[in-house]
């Protein structure tokens, strides 16, 4: 169901974990809250769940003001980062818990409860493990028990806190794909928190990037990936190289050399003076010796081949490290060896105030 977050703030002592934040989440959406640790994404998730309450603002779930509604009355399935499975109960009892505590007027019959538990265990691929205790399961299995337990109350919204955080890389990849499929099957509005942009890009329909309690940028994975809107977004998404830039009359210069206008995106309302420019790894071009258009010089430090591309790290004379990403065959044509210096060109740069 739809969720409207309307100018919500939550302070811890003097620190604003969520700061005047507004966000609409559409019915059936699969949304990622992405941000560095301390950006307020988990606090926001807990506010939606009713595990914490805002100091100001409103939270409306499916048209109903849920701001002060306790967690148990929101019909929200919450999957905790460390799963929070009840260790003294079997897998089956864990999944059954939400139905067991329902008031008898709403509680399904014993046989229906049993059937629903078995069906859910099938859905999360844990059929046959119902009699195990959480301690006897692997991390990935525990994660899926937690999910089944949350789904057992037929939640209108599913909230997941760092759902893949505690798992190893291979399990994580499988679970991501599986979560997407599950979301397509169940079509339940799903919000998950992550600090891993790759995870957010791969799983979510829409990504909301948070920083310091506010929304930094929101959009589809492609939009966010292709057009980072702020300086924070550039540094957070990674693979961006930062250059000191001088802006004069709408023209940006690096190390005294002006860049062509069509290679530069200037932040709105930026004035003349010192600024910072971001060049993403695939927009930084190692140039064949003698080719004009170099804005910096780099000494090759380290190379990583990854599929059809190569990531190369260069050390600049001022002691910084920059990263370029180019196609493998192009890289081979350059025939660089470690320690060799080369000119670096800039294909595209985004410029923001200092």
């Amino acid at each position, binding site marked *: 169901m739809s969720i409207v977050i309307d100018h919500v703030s939550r302070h811890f002592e003097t620190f604003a974990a969520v700061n005047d934040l507004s966000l609409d989440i559409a019915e059936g959406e699969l949304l990622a809250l992405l941000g560095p640790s301390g950006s307020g994404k988990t606090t926001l998730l807990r506010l939606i769940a009713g595990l914490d309450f805002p100091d100001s603002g409103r939270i409306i779930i499916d048209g109903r003001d849920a701001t002060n509604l306790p*967690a148990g009355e929101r019909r929200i399935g*919450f999957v905790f980062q460390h799963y929070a*499975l*009840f260790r*003294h109960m079997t897998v089956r009892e864990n999944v059954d818990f939400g139905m067991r*505590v329902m008031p008898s007027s709403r509680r399904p019959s014993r046989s229906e409860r049993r059937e629903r538990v078995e069906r859910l265990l099938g859905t999360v691929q844990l059929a046959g493990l119902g009699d195990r205790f959480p301690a006897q399961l692997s991390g990935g299995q525990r994660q899926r028990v937690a999910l089944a337990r949350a789904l057992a109350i037929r939640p209108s919204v599913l909230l997941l806190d760092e759902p893949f955080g505690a798992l190893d890389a291979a399990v994580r990849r499988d679970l991501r794909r599986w979560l997407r499929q599950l979301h397509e099957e169940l079509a339940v509005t799903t919000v998950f928190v992550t600090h891993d942009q790759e995870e957010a890009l791969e799983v979510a329909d829409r990504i909301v990037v948070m920083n310091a309690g506010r929304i930094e940028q929101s959009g589809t994975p492609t939009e966010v990936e292709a057009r980072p809107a702020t300086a924070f977004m550039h540094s957070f998404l990674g693979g961006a190289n930062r250059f000191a830039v001088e802006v004069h009359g709408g023209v940006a210069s690096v190390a005294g050399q002006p860049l062509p206008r069509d290679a530069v995106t200037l932040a709105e309302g930026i004035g003349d003076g010192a600024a910072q420019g971001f060049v993403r790894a695939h927009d930084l071009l190692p140039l064949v010796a003698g080719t004009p258009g170099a804005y910096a010089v780099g000494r090759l430090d380290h190379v990583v081949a990854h599929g059809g591309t190569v990531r190369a790290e260069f050390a600049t004379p001022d002691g910084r490290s920059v990263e370029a990403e180019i196609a493998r065959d192009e890289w081979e044509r350059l025939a660089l060896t470690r320690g060799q210096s080369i000119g670096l060109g800039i294909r595209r740069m985004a410029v923001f105030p200092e």
Partner: protein
Amino acid sequence: MRAAADTRGRTALIALALVLAGLTLLVPLVLIFVSAFADGIGAYFGNIAAPDTRHAIFLTVLTAVIVVPVNMVFGIATAWAVARYEFTGRKLLISLIEIPFSVSPIVAGTIYLFLYGQQGLLGPTLQSWGVQIMFSVPAIVLVSLFVTAPFVARELIPLMQAQGSEDEEAALSLGASPWQTFRLVTLPNIRWALLYGALLTNARAMGEFGAVSVVSGAIRGQTNTLPLHIELLYNDFNIAGAFASASILALIALATLGIKYVMENRAG
């Protein structure tokens, strides 16, 4: 050479530990039972069946039956407050809980005497309402509550802090009421530590001498608990009787150790 010296050193240390433990712990324990049965089994049971002794056993059990549940509730409430919430005075509360451990039981008894005694702060007022606390059963229960207050809380606080509140939040988000959450999630999570704390509380409540001796008045057949009764019998030169009573406390202690051993294995 070196290895041989190490082995010899180790053997010597173990032997020393065993001899010391035997002399200071085992011999007295054996002696209790030897002395208790010195006049024969019949005399032993005769001593235990003496009315004053039976009353002392009854009073000791009564005290434990009141003190243990009250301090379990107190311990859970305190541990909950300290482990789950941040509030001003939290650190102070943690220190306050420790007071009964750092204060000599005699001092604890004396404090209660000053509070509720005839010349005490509250004594005269209570007396005018017809309430007599000193030298009666309520005094024994009150000081026992005081000296055993920390046991349950001290077991629960570190455990509840380590477990965190995610399990309870999970239960709440699944629609459980606070009481259901406590009964179905919190209590099972802390049950072994809770029982362990209760066991320690029980052992101390039954064995407490100092604080109780100050406030009870040690009136035979009325306000005499087992530990006080042992002293009275001993002062009467009824050695076999004193040791017969002492053997009951020793048995309780042994049973406590046994249960504790089993529980530590289960909890661990």
